[in-house]
């Protein structure tokens, strides 16, 4: 067997806050291949790549390049060894020109100053060599996303990268740009480059990758020839639900419409449509799921429902129990009986340095029952916290523990406990089980179903197909800011079929979606 171009053995990474991002990961890269790393959000792909690129040092484990053991302590070490990386969030300085960004860190000199003409020439030369056209004198802040990505790739190539790591490169691209990128990558491969392609889009992985390493919750689940595995197998390893989620769903009585969205349109500052003619309703005792590839308007939809729209213009109506809440504050919306599980528990959902108990009361500390005169009612709060920790099986040393010390799953249980326990009329759940272990995820699903049974309306936005197909009563699919499909028996819909709608290959006509949504 040939020596691997790059090999990582037994990589473990523990972050200072105690999060274990990689656990005993093995990874090996052959020269001249396009190698995919697939895994869910939070599976540890990005951390692994940061380690290869010298941005993080592993807590344990070894890295070999061409059989030689190396320590990569900074990106410069990685660059020196021919490793280049194209980050998901572009690593460009917006106020600089393309040429300035290209040469940053390796500036050609004339005397003590920068030789700007030479920088432009170097940019043009690299662009020509790899057939990636850019304008060296344009300011980066004025470029399109696809252009910026080209600059990123060129930056790596200019620095002599032989191994090119691309972190979710297609997430931000239009289909045309994606195709162009694939052509470019294939060309680079032919020129002898090795490419690591991080993605969770299986079709893309199948389309251009030779091999695939699958990661799940910080561990490697194995390496395969892409040709030898089916998408189903990959997705099974990735998602890791060997047991398909099945829940006994009793039928809940229809409680009538709780949330109605009518002709909602949202445009950004430039007038580009983010949401177009969105109409649907969620009834009491019903879970409506919204599926879609991330970045197709789900975020804006949630923002419109939770008072979070900023920097955009909107029209239409969003009603909770008949009251328009489109431009209300989240506090007012909450007072209408709305609860909200946010997508990002670290950013919004929890206060990391506060106790579990403090996190549990954040949406109800104002209420009469939590206060006694001027003071918070300590014993009531303690009793509530203890009972929620118990009911939601939060594994912790007690309600006084800092929530930041908990694992992702337990932290999320606290968030879900807080939102579900107020007996909301409407629960908006945004990626409620993202980055959460399977046990916690199933537990959260059961809680959502219990809430439905109790007559609440639930709007579930999720990128997890398994979840959304199993627990939704009605499924809507979003693509480019529109609802393109609507299903009344989601569990009967195949993932393949759903994929066609999610990727915009198929769409129901207006009568069909209209019928279904009206039916809702």
């Amino acid at each position, binding site marked *: 067997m040939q020596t691997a171009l790059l090999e990582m053995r037994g990589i473990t990474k523990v972050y200072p806050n105690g999060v274990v991002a990689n656990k005993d990961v093995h990874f090996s890269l052959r020269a001249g291949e396009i190698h995919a790393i697939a895994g869910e959000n939070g599976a540890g792909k990005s951390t692994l790549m940061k380690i290869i690129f010298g941005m993080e040092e592993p*807590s344990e484990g070894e890295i070999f390049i061409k059989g030689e053991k190396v320590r990569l302590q900074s990106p410069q070490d990685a660059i020196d060894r021919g490793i280049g990386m194209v980050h998901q969030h572009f690593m460009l300085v917006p106020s600089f020109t393309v040429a300035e960004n290209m040469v940053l860190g390796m500036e050609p000199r004339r005397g003590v100053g920068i030789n700007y003409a030479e920088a432009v020439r170097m940019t043009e030369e690299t662009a020509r060599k790899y057939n990636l056209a850019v304008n060296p004198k344009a300011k980066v802040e004025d470029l399109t996303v696809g252009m910026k990505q080209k600059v990123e790739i060129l930056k790596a190539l200019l620095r002599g990268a032989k191994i090119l790591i691309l972190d979710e490169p297609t997430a931000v691209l239009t289909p045309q740009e994606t195709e162009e990128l694939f052509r470019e990558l294939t060309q680079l491969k032919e020129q002898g480059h090795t490419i690591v392609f991080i993605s969770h889009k299986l079709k893309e992985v199948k389309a251009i990758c030779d091999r695939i390493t699958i990661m799940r919750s910080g561990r490697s689940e194995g390496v395969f020839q892409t040709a030898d595995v089916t998408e189903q197998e990959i997705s099974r390893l990735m998602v890791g639900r060997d047991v398909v989620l099945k829940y006994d769903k009793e039928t809940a009585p229809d409680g009538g419409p709780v949330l109605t969205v009518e002709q909602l349109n949202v445009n950004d500052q430039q007038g580009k449509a983010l949401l177009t003619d969105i109409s649907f309703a969620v009834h009491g005792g019903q879970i409506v799921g919204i599926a879609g590839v991330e970045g197709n308007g789900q975020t804006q939809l949630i923002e419109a429902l939770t008072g979070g729209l900023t920097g955009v213009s909107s029209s239409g109506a969003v009603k909770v129990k008949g009251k328009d809440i489109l431009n209300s504050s989240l506090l007012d919306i909450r007072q209408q009986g709305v609860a909200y599980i946010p997508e990002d528990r670290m950013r*919004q959902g929890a206060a990391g340095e506060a106790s579990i108990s403090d996190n549990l009361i954040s949406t109800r500390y104002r209420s009469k029952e939590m206060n006694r005169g001027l003071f918070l009612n300590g014993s009531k709060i303690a009793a509530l916290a203890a009972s929620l920790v118990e009911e939601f099986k939060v594994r912790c040393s007690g309600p006084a523990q800092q929530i930041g010390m908990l694992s992702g799953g337990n932290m999320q249980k606290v968030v879900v406990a807080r939102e579900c326990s107020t007996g909301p009329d409407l629960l908006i759940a945004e990626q409620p089980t993202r980055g959460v272990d399977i046990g916690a995820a199933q537990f959260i699903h059961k809680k959502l179903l219990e809430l439905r049974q109790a007559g609440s309306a639930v709007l579930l936005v999720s990128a997890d197909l398994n979840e959304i197909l199993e627990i939704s009563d009605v499924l809507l699919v979003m693509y480019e800011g529109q609802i393109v499909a609507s299903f009344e028996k989601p569990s009967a819909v195949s993932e393949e079929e759903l994929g066609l709608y999610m990727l915009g290959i198929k769409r129901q006509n207006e009568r069909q979606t209209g019928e279904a949504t009206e039916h809702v």
Partner: protein
Amino acid sequence: MFKSKYFEVIRTTAVIVISLAIAFLIITLVSDHPVKTIGIFLLEPLSTKGHIGNVVEMAIPLMFTGLAVSLLFRANMFNLGAEGIFYFSGVVTSVLAIHLTLNSWLHPLVAIAAGSIVGALLSAIPGILKAKWNANELVTSLMFNNILFGIGLYLLNYHLRDAKAFANVSYKFEKTAQLSKIFQGTRIHTGLIIVVVLIVLAHLFLYKTKWGYELRMTGINREFARYSGMKTAKVIIMVHLIAGFIAGMGGSVEVLGMYSRFQWTSLPGYGLDGALVAMLAKNNPLSVIASALFLAYIRIGADLMSRLSDVPSEMISIIQAVIILLISAEQFLKFWKNRMLLKEAKEA
């Protein structure tokens, strides 16, 4: 076996030990009789009632500003304006102490209340600028320190100055305005009672009321607070008002408790010391008492040392700098915590 959760306690202890060690080192290098000098530095503050009194007197203003800064830091507001407010409220109180005629109950009450309210209002300005327009509260508060100092000094020199006095000081305060001493043989004044009550109130406020809860959550994660429905802009303005009130009261109390004339011709430094007290107290109101006493203790120790030996008291500012640099150093001893975490993660 140490656990990572005791980390903060151990680190604070380590900082204090290191800073004292540096103090001893400096003394050893400078003094002709190092052992004796260290003895004075460490023990002399406890040697007489008067000296103990000095420590407590010194701790009073530090508790005020330490408490004010603690609350601001709790709300994640980087505002160092306590310095200017402490000074300016002292001026305001002095004006009333000189010109009002009231009985000895009302006089200090009115003078201190005025100083505190002025402090609160002045402090609110950077708060409002921050909350409404996101103007950097650090820069505005630092600029305010200098502005308030300039105006205060102007008032002293042009309106309060007693031409008959030999130094640049104000007219004498009315006797009725001055705070009474509460321990014989010391100059400890009723300000001690005021500040301890204030600290207890702040503790209750911070941990036992919904407003304190909002303050803490906003400080830990403003996004989370907003998501939970809190009006974080209001919280920010509120904490500025409270902190300004406390810092202003500190200046007022200090002036009436320790002096018979206003005589600060430069910023007294208690505001920035307050940042140090707050850091040592980890922004906990009750801990402010201990950390202010500690700082006061080493300062009085240094003062006595300079009087009784050959080492100047300014040594203490070097020690204070070391404490600040280390106590706010996230990475200090962090390697040790990381090792603990790795171990704990493996065991789990």
